[in-house]
């Protein structure tokens, strides 16, 4: 049992300091509607999840909506409004990161100590040559207005992204893992950016 897992369990079952009722998020008591600052809490903790890649998207969405409703500025008068605004923004950000498989893997890796993209910029040479080739084809097709080629490029980028995404999710569920696993995940996350960028020009 790791310290992180312990902490997240606590976050899920924490009791309200005001009414001692159970809280589904450390930011909000469902029972007495008290708000608590959540500075320094991870996105996972804020939404009451264990820090793990394996998240039930439906459960995440439900939890996000439930807690957001609870902390919403409309339900909190003068005194609570600034905290309520801050928590709402924090919840939106947590939901944005955790609901996206790539951002979630990136965030979890960072949370567990990296390496970050700045620390490890490695990317397989074939990713660079493939994206370069695709870019050349896209540029040429753009000049000649060849939509068939552009569509074909789109399909190929989508396929490459799907393969990478499967790799990322395969690796990310094994986090924290060893150094090799983390650097493999780092490389896959670095690679995704090159393909995502292609959609900007497609």
């Amino acid at each position: 049992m790791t310290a992180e897992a312990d902490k997240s369990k606590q976050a899920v079952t924490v009791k309200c300091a005001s009414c001692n009722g159970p809280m589904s998020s450390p930011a909000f008591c469902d029972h007495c509607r008290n708000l608590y600052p959540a500075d320094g809490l991870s996105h996972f903790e804020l939404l009451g999840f264990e820090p793990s890649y394996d998240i039930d998207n439906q459960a995440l969405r439900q939890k996000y909506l439930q807690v957001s409703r609870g902390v919403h500025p409309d339900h909190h008068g003068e005194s609570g409004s600034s905290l309520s605004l801050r928590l709402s923004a924090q919840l939106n950000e947590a939901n944005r990161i955790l609901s996206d498989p790539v951002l979630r893997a990136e965030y979890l890796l960072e949370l567990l100590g990296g390496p970050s993209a700045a620390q490890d910029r490695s990317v397989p040479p074939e990713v660079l040559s493939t994206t370069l080739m695709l870019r050349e084809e896209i540029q040429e097709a753009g000049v000649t207005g060849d939509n068939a080629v552009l569509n074909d490029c789109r399909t190929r980028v989508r396929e490459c992204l799907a393969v990478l995404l499967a790799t990322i999710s395969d690796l990310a569920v094994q986090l924290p893992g060893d150094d090799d696993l983390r650097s493999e995940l780092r490389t896959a996350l670095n690679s995704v950016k090159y393909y995502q960028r292609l959609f900007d020009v497609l």
Partner: protein
Amino acid sequence: MAYNNKLIDHFQNPRNVGSLDRDDPNVGTGIVGAPECGDVMKLQIQVDDNDNIIDAKFKTFGCGSAIASSSLATEWIKGRKLDEALEIKNTDIVQELALPPVKIHCSVLAEDAVRAAVADLKAKAARKKQENTEAAPAAQ
């Protein structure tokens, strides 16, 4: 801060855009990328039999600063000895083009591309040497 004229000139009229034959033993190819932004840069150099760089070409898919940096780099390495090409530092590019801090990674990319192209060429030469002189050890 406005971009300086040299940078705008290299961006609008990039020098040495294009490709050289990858399979030519006298051509070295470097492909590098910036994971922060997904920019990709290909830089190729061609040498004569005395390791003089007689041609350089690039293709860069990225921002104006990345294009200008690689354009300038190809201009600078043409006519140099292979090893002298490695003396080009990203800071020289930053200074020449007055790149703002957020664009410094573009100059790093250009320096990396030159290094990768030189390394590719040297690896090719080493392979050729090995094939040709399997019997006689290379005198270094």
